[in-house]
């Protein structure tokens, strides 16, 4: 497993650059990763990131629909905050593994 220095912290990442240990994450790291996607993080972004981290730590599988019913953002806003693949992008910024919907 590879390591990478993000915002001055050495973190473990997989070959796609997703952090493999969510406890190594902090807000500065999030800001750094978000830059790769040209996203400037706002409070709304952070609210979504915190939600994702909480759900994942609780052992839940994430889906776009589930984020859309979180009460924080609806699906449309989720797309606007994290354009492209919102779940893939937000998970990377949140320091959690890429969500794999099961086969």
């Amino acid at each position: 497993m590879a390591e990478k220095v993000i915002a001055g912290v050495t973190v473990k990442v997989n070959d796609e650059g997703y952090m493999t240990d969510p406890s190594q994450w902090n807000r500065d790291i999030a800001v750094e990763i978000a830059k790769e996607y040209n996203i400037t993080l706002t409070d709304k972004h952070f609210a979504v990131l915190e939600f994702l981290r909480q759900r994942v730590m609780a052992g839940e599988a994430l889906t776009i629909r589930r984020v859309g019913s979180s009460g924080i953002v609806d699906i449309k806003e989720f797309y606007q905050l994290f354009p492209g693949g919102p779940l893939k992008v937000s998970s990377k910024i949140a320091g959690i593994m890429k969500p794999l919907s099961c086969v």
Partner: protein
Amino acid sequence: MGKIVIIGGGTAGTMIANKLYKTLPVHEWEITIVDPDEKHYYQPGFLFIPFNKKLKDKFVKPKKDYIPKGVNFIVDKVSKLEPARKAVLLKSGQELTYDYLIVATGTKPSVDDTPGLNGPLWQKEAFEFYTYEGAVALAEKLETWKGGRMVMAIVDMPIKCPVAPLEFVFLADAFFTQKGIRDKVEISYVTPLPGAFTKPVATAKLSELLSSKNINIIQDFYIEHVDNEGKKLVSYDEKEVPFDLLVTVPLNKGAEFIQNSGIGDDLNYIPVNKETLQMQQYPEIFVLGDAAAIPTSKAGAVAHFAADVLLENLLDMIEGKEPTAKFDGHANCFIETGFGKAALIDFNYDQEPLAGTFPLPVIGPMSLLKETRLNHWGKLAFEWIYWNILIKGRYLPISNKMSMVGKKISK
């Protein structure tokens, strides 16, 4: 007398009813199965109906022919579960109590969850094939369809038999080729996933297959609504896919009573311990088949592997022991690829599908992730196995644990 109630008499419920009936002493245990639908459908057959309507009758049989005579079969719908009281409420007003409960109510397509899907085009130019009626309606459409843009679109994951929409486009390609109109049909495969499939090795192989058959793949497309007037799919990030014929896999959802009873997740699947298949809060409740929120495929073959584990654990509990059998998420399924060939994948919670061979007793090694005729015959044989062995709970010489024998690990 102990009481076991099984909710749902589909693939999983029928299978476990047979296993329990064979294992438990009749004079000590009363087994009851509740299901509002008297017909048992062979759902894997729904994939073939759109291309040959004549097949439809052989995929439906009376449920009672497959439920053991000593098991009570109540034709009614469960409207609520009250786990704290160990009570099951039925639509008719009847109430059942249990010592052990097995929920096997599966999942079904929900057309109303996508705005515009159930609109003016529904069953005219927009279809689904995850129900018997839907598959038959689509068959009637395809009989006379002259060609144009056919779009196969998945609304969201998870869906049961996640390879079925891929198989559908492979079979459609063969169907239109044999009809002599393939050059008049443009086939697109629209998925919310970032690729043809979820796991890397299988995605690479399946993407190759799609492009070799001249099927476009449109990935990361998350449908917001269907525009009936403009005949197009519109995504949340405002991308569009126009169609002349739309085939969808609508959002799949579990039974409503799971929602009413407050025991499910947002798609009405019940979270359980993925190894023992029990609910955390109510260990006397097991969930088998598509109704369970566990990270593996929703497929009949999975329910079959899980049923052995459930049986062992239930017997342990009856004897007052801690349940020890563990389900590893074992799944295997044939992928019909058209022109009399099929591929096969085999995987579990931890191991993604790989290439190689699958050691099948008697029939011999089947090729994994590769199109062969033998795999196609395997798929056809599955129907016979389903009616005669699988749901009757008979012994099938395939281990419920996934094996790495024959799998190629390095690429």
